């Protein structure tokens, strides 16, 4: 509870004694490059394979001829949109971006760079952390959209090239009984997950004390805590919104 209280105070500190809008704008654009653009290749790779594997495994489990083949792509679509793209990618995001945020801030802390900002009269938490969280919340939903598209393309490529189902069947499955609310739900989840990963990772990094060993520990804790928070949030959001 003490840690949770510190986390809430930390969040409060992000919105007091802010710098100018243009300062944040530049920082957010920089962070978007780091968080979003530099993560695209990893997201494309992972999600394409995820879609491909989902197609193969669904086909493997659908042994009865009574179920039409296009159900395979329907399952791929639902799994991708509801869970694989927003949630599994959040775990990848926590591993890549969360650990990087915690490690970066932790290093800044132990090398007194954060103290240097404070001495200059700058609210270091707001200056360093707020742009990271905002950039995460802007870029992660976009990455989820990219991941969703790539996952479905991956499923299509593997499904059609290995003869599991025809291109027509795959596209039919993708388009049949489509509820567009699932997309809204996935995007809401992605914004919440991005906030949790960004804020928890920065919190862990910002309060690092000690040396290089502690920076490593902070990075690990950032990933662990973020993943737990994402999974809990996933459950509550599913209960709340579905």
């Amino acid at each position, binding site marked *: 509870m003490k840690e949770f209280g510190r986390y809430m105070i930390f969040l409060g500190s992000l919105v007091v004694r802010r710098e100018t809008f243009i300062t944040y704008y530049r920082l957010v654009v920089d962070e978007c490059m780091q968080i979003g653009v530099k993560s695209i290749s990893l997201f494309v790779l992972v999600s394409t394979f995820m879609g491909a594997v989902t197609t193969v495994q669904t086909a493997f489990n659908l042994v009865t001829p009574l179920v039409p083949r296009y159900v395979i792509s329907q399952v791929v679509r639902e799994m991708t949109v509801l869970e694989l793209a927003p949630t599994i990618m959040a775990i990848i995001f926590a591993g890549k971006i969360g650990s990087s945020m915690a490690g970066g801030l932790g290093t*800044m802390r132990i*090398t007194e*760079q954060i103290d240097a900002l404070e001495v200059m009269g700058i609210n270091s938490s707001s200056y360093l952390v707020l742009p990271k969280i905002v950039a995460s919340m802007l870029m992660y939903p976009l990455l989820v959209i990219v991941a969703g598209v790539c996952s479905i393309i991956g499923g299509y490529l593997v499904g059609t090239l290995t003869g599991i189902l025809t291109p027509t069947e795959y596209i039919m499955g993708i388009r049949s009984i489509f509820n567009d609310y699932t997309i809204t739900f996935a995007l809401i989840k992605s914004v919440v997950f991005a906030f949790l990963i960004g804020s928890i990772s920065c919190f862990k990094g910002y309060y690092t004390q000690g040396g290089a060993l502690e920076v490593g520990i902070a990075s690990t804790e950032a990933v662990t805590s973020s993943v737990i928070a994402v999974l809990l949030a996933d459950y509550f959001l599913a209960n709340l919104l579905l």
Partner: protein
Amino acid sequence: MIKIKNISKSFNDKSVLRNISGEFDKGKTNLIIGSSGTGKSVLLKCIVGLLHPDTGYAFYDLRNFTDADKDVKSEIRREIGMLFQGGALFDSKNVQENVMFPLDILTKMPYDEKLDRVNFCLKRVGLENVNKKMASEISGGMKKRVGIARAIVNNPNYLFCDEPNSGLDPQTSILIDELISEITHEFNITTIIVTHDMNSVLGIGEKIMFLHKGDKLWEGSNEDITHSGVKELDDFVFINKVMKSLKGTKLV
């Protein structure tokens, strides 16, 4: 001038500083000295507000800094320059960006004016043609110089240096000391230096505060330090054979 009054600080019931009071004069190099673990850096951090003292106050030209609200603190902090032990340069920025950073954040100067000021400060600390080098590409001594340039770029009224000589060879240490001393006199700044380097003490210590195990035991100048009559200070000053042989003589 900076005045401190009854500053005490404890960590987990371990008392690190006890009722430290004193004055640091404008236009002078004021030194806080003592062995490792005596609370020098903690005192400096209490003065600049990186730590909040359990009791006591720091006054910047009669303005109570310790109890000021965040906006006033922020205003006073914009008059402060600080050189950190490791330089604390921003890894992601090059030398020019590091020195320009306070101007970017705290002023609305046009870019050309900022660049002129940065080049002036870099030249003042003896660095030229290193603007585009990253912080990780320069030596320890250069980092300290860049740190000093960054600390003075915004024309501070107060300059704080936390062990400016740590990790430097004796020759570079003396150059850094002289640079800080020159800048202090040139810009009439209130400078406080935390150090345990005797070369600094004897070379630039115009006003010295000696701390021992969290207490202030002595205050004076480098001219008086060799005949202070304080045993702990004598133990600190005359630690090696060379210094012992000079005991009783006037060193400055």
